[in-house]
């Protein structure tokens, strides 16, 4: 019994990090209809920021996290202004962004590999290998901290979206872009800010990932499949859905790993992706697509 509780706790701890990784992707898709396949490679950039800050200057990843967020947000502003804004009204915008961000992912991977090689890295603050014990149950401190910080950031985002004027503008644009524009929302600016926030969340996730997982430039291909399964299960564009999906799949994957071996654990996400697309393509919280 204690094993099952142990697995549940480990699954929940990782679920928070997955939720943060997926939240930015979901926000950007919801507002801008950008399927950002480069999101995990940008998470990787955040991880390298945290890694080198720790390695060179001994700065804790949790301290450098806001810096990673700012660097990624600035990257988002530049990318958006240079690339995504000009085609925002195109009827084929989503399709174009799939190809475009796929290309970006390869460029980022190549740039990171050139700069830092493909060596596996992990940031190792003291708590990353420490744990607390409650009876027979152990909770890895690194995962616990990462899970808590993720939850705080997601809760902060949710409250901001729910109660601030700009949050209203983002939610409105997500639900009906044309209507938002007719009511005075500058949807281009909303798109810019949302894209920057989405990438800031990628930066935060990267700083956390740097001490939870080992990473190397090409690992983003593994993560994109995981993140897409979370976003599709939750419902494209639904941050709440992404969070629920992240916790659910993370816990299920942990149990699958426990019962059938670690190799099968990752498969959980892919199976979920296929099953959702077959049975409920709109996901848990998404809207049913209209038939043409």
């Amino acid at each position, binding site marked *: 019994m204690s094993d099952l509780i142990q697995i549940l706790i480990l699954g929940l701890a990782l679920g928070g990090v997955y939720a943060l990784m997926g939240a930015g992707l979901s926000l950007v898709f919801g507002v801008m209809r950008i399927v950002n396949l480069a999101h995990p490679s940008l998470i990787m950039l955040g991880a390298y920021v945290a890694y080198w800050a720790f390695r060179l200057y001994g700065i804790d990843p949790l301290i450098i996290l806001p810096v990673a967020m700012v660097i990624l947000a600035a990257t988002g502003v530049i990318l958006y202004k240079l690339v995504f804004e000009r085609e925002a009204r195109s009827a084929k915008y989503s399709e174009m962004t799939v190809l475009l961000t796929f290309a970006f992912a390869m460029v980022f991977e190549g740039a990171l590999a050139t700069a830092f090689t493909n060596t596996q890295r992990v940031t190792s603050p003291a708590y990353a290998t420490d744990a607390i014990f409650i009876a027979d149950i152990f909770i890895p401190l690194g995962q616990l901290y990462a899970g808590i910080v993720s939850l705080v950031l997601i809760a902060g985002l949710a409250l901001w979206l729910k109660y601030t004027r700009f949050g209203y503008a983002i939610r409105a644009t997500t639900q009906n872009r044309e209507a*938002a524009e007719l009511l005075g929302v500058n949807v281009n600016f909303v798109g810019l800010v949302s894209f920057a926030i989405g990438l800031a969340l990628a930066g935060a996730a990267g700083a956390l990932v740097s001490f939870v997982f080992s990473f190397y430039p090409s690992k983003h291909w593994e993560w994109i499949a995981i993140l897409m399964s979370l976003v599709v299960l939750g419902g494209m564009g639904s941050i709440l859905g992404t969070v629920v999906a992240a916790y659910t799949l993370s816990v299920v994957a942990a149990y699958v790993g426990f019962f059938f071996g670690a190799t099968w654990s990752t498969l959980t996400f892919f199976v979920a992706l296929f099953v959702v697309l077959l049975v409920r393509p709109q996901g848990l919280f998404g809207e049913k697509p209209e038939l043409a």
Partner: protein
Amino acid sequence: MTKLLEVKDVVAGYGDGPAILNGASIDVQPGKVHCIIGPNGAGKSTLLKAICGMLKVRQGSVMFKGQNLKGKRPDQVLREGICFVPQERALFPKMTVRENLRMGGFSMTDKATLEKRIDEIEERFPILRERRDQHAGTMSGGQQQTLAMARTMILRPEIVMLDEPSLGLAPKIVQEVFDIMKVMTEDGITVLLVEQNALMGLKHADWGVVLDLGRTLFEGPAKEVLTDPRIQELYLGGQKAA
């Protein structure tokens, strides 16, 4: 005759496609209800979209109180005092009624005034108070139209443009829609109405405009348009005005 809005020889269309409006013109007088009628494809909805900045005006001018609106974005046109309610009502289905009303005053910076105006709207349209915590997407078509129209009043605009507000509504509800339009005019709001049900639209209007093939064919007092035999034959399907 005082003109609040003067649309002159406007040419506009969707994207890079062919022009839908081919020199449409209309003069809008303050405080009046103007009803635009015409056959399908005449460019009625396109004209409203061109005025509010959703479509680029390729040629011609859209003068509002002496200022050319050509090239302005919808949010900028709104700030000038022109609200637009499109056919599909433009609500936020997963926001509550109260949140939708708040979005109606999005361009207002004074939060206290905004909340006060929302309270006033809820008082005038009790159904919106009853449903204030309900998601807009779960309301009936008539209630959604009430919300969409009432929401425009929060900003106290000078002109409200309504694109087929009676579309898809039961006859009894349609009358409610026109009652709301009357409330708007009592508040001094000028209404520019596009209505497929031409008879109904003209009955509630002061001025009628007939559009065809993207051009203004005929305009005049709504009663005259309503009784003009050519217009009855061509656009009212031979319906006799009561």
